[in-house]
Structure formats: structure tokens, C-alpha cells
């Protein structure tokens, strides 16, 4: 068991899957000769060559489409989009084609692509480089959407995604590539669905995904020092959502806070609270609360960016509100 960085975990998954199956290729801007913006493919160009690690022009919609076409003809492409903001340019091929090809063909043709892309705010990247947008992909039938919170899932979910016959969107995070965590030395496949209880507790449930799991964990730590036992759920997959794990937890704690880095409207929190309404409304003791970003494009100025984006203290404050302790 070694402690490795998130980017190293992704790199290892690429390497293993490419070694395992000669039909696996990767494409994206600067992933080859330059080694990748996040180093997630570093050294692989030298190892696998330019036909398998493909440096693309800035043509997101078209190279995503190329990935889709190649996947329909037997190749298994992993597409890196440098930032989720640029994935917006590929929405046509992704949503109009990838998500629907199996369905439109009556189940006869599959489209096994993987798209990896970081969402999230980092350090003052400003309005056009700070989108989160998970909510947009999770609302599209026909896509799988997963959100690894650390190196183990980043590694094991990418491996599973490559072998999965559905189109899978892996949403990484600008601020997590250097985060370290343990990954076993032997090969591991992590499931593409199913939430995980990452901290057990009995008084309140904090739900997060990707980066916001870490905000929940930090808030749970503070709550523990105040004598409150918080359970933390990492959703792991935003599509499909694991309703059972959420229900079981809420039936135990009767209180819930959902933390998302994105704006609230039509978002993860809205979806989770709807699931709770449908699954276990009468188990609730208090109104659920969403922690989310301010409803503005992300400002550049440092203090404003901080003010606009939720942090662990915001999750703590929401929890105390739900607990009736403020």
C-alpha cells in the first residue's frame, strides 16, 4: 500500500489499462509531449507512442466526437478535457450523441467512452475557469457521472470506467490533483455506482461529493469536538444516485445537510433532498439545508472568491442550524 497523489493515481490507471488492452487510447490537449496539464498522462507518450496518447488541437467538440466514433468501432478512448468549462464545447457530441447512441440504436450500438475533466474552483481562476457544472451532466439520461474524492477512487473508478460499456464522465477537481491517499499496490476496480459512508455517526448526516466530502469531513471533526456525532456520505456517483445509502443514514440521524461547491439551483442538493422526500420524508426531524455557492459567476478577487464558495465553516454552520443549536 503506497501513498500517492491523485494525479499519480490517474496516471497509474491509464498505464495499467493501456498495458492491459491495446485498444485503449487517450486523447486531449497537451496530454502527450507536454505530459498533461495535471501530469495525469506524464511519461505515457514515451511509453505508448503518438497513436495511443494523442495530442489534439483545440477542437473539443470534434475530438470528443472522434472518441465517440472510435468507441463505436471497438476502440476504448479516454478523453481528457483540460477543464470542465471547456467541456461545454463538447456538449453537443456528448449529450446529443454519446448519451443517446445506445438508446437510439435500440440497444444495438454502444459508446464506451470515458471523459475525464476537472471541475471546481482553485486559486482565483476567475469566472470562465471555475465552473463546477456536475449538475448539468447528472441530469442527462444515458451518461454515468462519477466524482472521485481521493486517489483510490480516482484510480479504481477510471479503471472501471474504461471497461464499462456506458459513456462515463469522471469529474475531477482543480484543487485535488496533489491530494495524497493510499492506493493498494495490487490492481483494484472501484464500482461506478454506490455511495460510501466515510464517517459513521448518529446525530446528523452530511452529504458531499468530490471536493465537498472534505468540507463535510472537516465539519464533522469540529462537530465531534462539540459532542455531535455526524455521519458523512460521499455520493461517489451523481448518476445514478444511490438512494438506499442516503435513506438508511437519514432514517438513523433524522437530519441532513448537503454540501455542494456549485450554485444551488437544479443542483446536487436539490436532487438529494428530493430523493429524501421520496424515500423517507417522515424520518426527518428538521428541514434539510443545502450549503452551496453564491449565485454569481466566480469572482476573481481573492476574498470574494472565498466569500462566494462554501467552506467547512459553512457546512458546520448549516449543521448547527439543522441541529437547532444556533
Amino acid at each position, binding site marked *: 500500500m503506497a501513498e500517492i497523489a491523485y494525479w499519480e493515481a490517474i496516471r497509474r490507471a491509464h498505464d495499467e489499462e493501456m498495458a492491459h488492452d491495446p485498444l485503449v487510447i487517450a486523447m486531449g490537449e497537451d496530454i502527450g509531449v507536454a505530459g498533461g496539464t495535471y501530469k495525469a498522462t506524464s511519461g505515457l507518450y514515451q511509453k505508448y507512442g503518438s497513436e495511443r496518447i494523442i*495530442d489534439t*488541437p483545440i477542437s*473539443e467538440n470534434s475530438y470528443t466526437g472522434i472518441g465517440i466514433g472510435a468507441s463505436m468501432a471497438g476502440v476504448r478512448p479516454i478523453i481528457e478535457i483540460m477543464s470542465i468549462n471547456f467541456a461545454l464545447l463538447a456538449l453537443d457530441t456528448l449529450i446529443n450523441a454519446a448519451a443517446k447512441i445506445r438508446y437510439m440504436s435500440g440497444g444495438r450500438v454502444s459508446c464506451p467512452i470515458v471523459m475525464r475533466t476537472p471541475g471546481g474552483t482553485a486559486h482565483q*481562476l476567475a469566472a*470562465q475557469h471555475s465552473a463546477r457544472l456536475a449538475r448539468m451532466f447528472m441530469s442527462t439520461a444515458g451518461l454515468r457521472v462519477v466524482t472521485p474524492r481521493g486517489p483510490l477512487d480516482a484510480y479504481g473508478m477510471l479503471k472501471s470506467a474504461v471497461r464499462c460499456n456506458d459513456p462515463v464522465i469522471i469529474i475531477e477537481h482543480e484543487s485535488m490533483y496533489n491530494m495524497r491517499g493510499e492506493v493498494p499496490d495490487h490492481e483494484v476496480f472501484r464500482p461506478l455506482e454506490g455511495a460510501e459512508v466515510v464517517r459513521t455517526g448518529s446525530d446528523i448526516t452530511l452529504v458531499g461529493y468530490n471536493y465537498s466530502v472534505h468540507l463535510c469531513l472537516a465539519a464533522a471533526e469540529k462537530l465531534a469536538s462539540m459532542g455531535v456525532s455526524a455521519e458523512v456520505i460521499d455520493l461517489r456517483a451523481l448518476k445514478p444516485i444511490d438512494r438506499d445509502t442516503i435513506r438508511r443514514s437519514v432514517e438513523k440521524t433524522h437530519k441532513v445537510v448537503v454540501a455542494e461547491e456549485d450554485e444551488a439551483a437544479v443542483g446536487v442538493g436539490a436532487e438529494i433532498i428530493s430523493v429524501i422526500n421520496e424515500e423517507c420524508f417522515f424520518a426527518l426531524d428538521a428541514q434539510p439545508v443545502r450549503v452551496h455557492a453564491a449565485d454569481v459567476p466566480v*469572482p*476573481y478577487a481573492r*476574498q*470574494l472568491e472565498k466569500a462566494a464558495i462554501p467552506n467547512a465553516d459553512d457546512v458546520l454552520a448549516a449543521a448547527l442550524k439543522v441541529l437547532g443549536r444556533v
Partner: protein
Amino acid sequence: MNRDLLRSLVYDMLLARTFEERAAQEYANGRISGFLHLYPGEEAVAVGVLHAAEPADYVVSTYREHVHALARGISARQIMAELFGKKDGVSGGMGGSMHIFDGTRRFMGGYAIVGETFPIALGVGYAIAYRGLPEAVICFFGDGAVNQGTFHESLNMAALWRIPILFVCENNHYQIGTEIHRHSAVADIHKRACGYAIPAEKIDGMDVLAVYEAARRALDAIRNEGGPRFLEFETYRFRGHSMADPGAYRPAAELQAYLHDDPVDSVIRAAETADPTPGKQAPIRAQGSPPSPFRGPAWESLTAPDIESLRAEAAAVVDDAVRFAEASPAPTMEDAWHAFRRNRMPDGPSAP
């Protein structure tokens, strides 16, 4: 007149270099954050083109746009304050380095999504044509941007509808770490404009005088004959793609060769050279092309002390800009809401 123009070009080149190098220092000092894309090496393009433009012309630019903004006359103070994320920044601290806007100077923004500027600039041009005004829009973009579908779509519509737009390609040979021959099937970018019947030229983008003349010709043609024009300027960035990129993928010899051709040094050399002298005459021009404003009887050189005083002035302006940016207050969340909501109603009072 010509001497004033020359002086102003030299000054803007010096200001551009000084401003950008100072921005790099302030980034290292932690006073600027986020992505910072600098322009050293490419100054001649923005400075030359924008000196050829009229104040009523519009500009649409990229995330590497500080120098375009300076050359448009936006103050170094306001730009530096924006880089510092301060309230007195030209975008109020909301936009940062990549999103400089100044409606009063028709600077319609720096954009960070590669390729989105083509249709936006085209729309500005459409509005100009629709309103029958003698104006043009200048759209700056890099060599990497021409592989986005919007480029081809926009060139087609620009030609089809005879939009008064000047496409300005800043060909610095790199799309971050990917060299042009690895991202473009046709590396002579101006040739792509031929496919849409847009008159296009390739110009040495390290020579601000050549840039100025080419832009002048193109803008005159847009105003007199109508329709789009396309200029490709060959240039080079001396630094990495952004402050986060050391630029290690570039051969050292290549960088050295371009450093040798530094556009700031070149214009200073040219400005100090007395002209006309028999050996320095401009090449005979093709019949019908307008006379160069830099060559001929009215040409006068600048002296070394002239240059030194311009250099000192640029340094003082940048120092002052940093002091101004430091002293400016940080914007508040109230300012953010205000930025988002102001000017909502075309005729009524703006919302709080």
C-alpha cells in the same frame, strides 16, 4: 506627425514590456494570482495593430490581453488594479487578468474560452454594418484558436455578409505546449482565409512598423471596400504559456533565436537610425500601395536620450500603477452583486 507616431509606438512597446515584466514580479510576490498570461515577445502585434485603429473601432481579445488594453489607452493603473483583484480595477476586481473590459474604449473583453471570441467579434461587426457606421472590429486570437469550429464558421459568415472585421492571428507557434506543426495541418494560417475568399497576408510580427502598416492597409480596405480582412503575424512568446508554465517543451535554440529578434530592441534600433539615407530607403512598393508613414522625407529619428526618457516614463507609469493597485480597496460581496445586476433595465434605474 510621423515622429510623434514613432515616439508613441516606441513608448507603447516599452510600456508593454515594463508592465508585463512587473506583473510577473508581482505574481511571484503573491499579489497577483490565478492564471497570468504574459505578452513579452509579442508586443509589436498589439501595439502596431491598435495604433492603426481608430478610437471608434472595437476590440475583442483573449486572456493574453493586458497589452491590447494598454495600447487601447486603458490606464496602467486600472489594469494593474484588476490584476491585483481590486475595486478600482477596470473590471472592478471581478474579472482579473483574463477578463479586461472597458466599454468606454470599446474594449469588448478578454475571454478565456479559446474560440468563443470569433462569433462575438463577428456579432459586434454585424452591429456596425447594420447600423451603417464607418467602424470596424478587431478580433485577436492565437494560432491554437484556429482549430476550433467557430473559427471556420465565423470566417464563412464574415465573408458571406461582408462584415467589417479584421482578424488578427498572433501566431506564436504554440498552443500551450503543442507546437504548431503538431496542431495544424496547414501551419500558414492566413492560407485558411483563402477558403473563404477573405484577403489575407502574413506579416513579420516582430516588426512593429510592418505590423502598423499592414493593419493600416487592412483597416483602410475594410472601410473603403467593405468586408473582412485577415492578418497573420508571426511572433513568439518569450515566457511560458502562463506563469504556471516554465515552457520547457521549447528548444533552447529556438527561444534564443527569437530573443535575438526582440521586437522592443528592434523598434528602438529602427527609431535611432537616421532615415532617409540611401542605404535605408524602403523597398520600392508595388504600384498603388499607400506610402509608408515611416519612410520618406518626413521621417525623423529619435535620439538615444529620447529613448531613455521614454523608458523612464514607462517605468514611472508602471511603478505608479503598482502603488495605485496596492492602495485600492478590495471589492466586497456587495460589489459582486452590483456587478451582476447593474444595467439590467435598458431605460429604468439600475437594480441595487
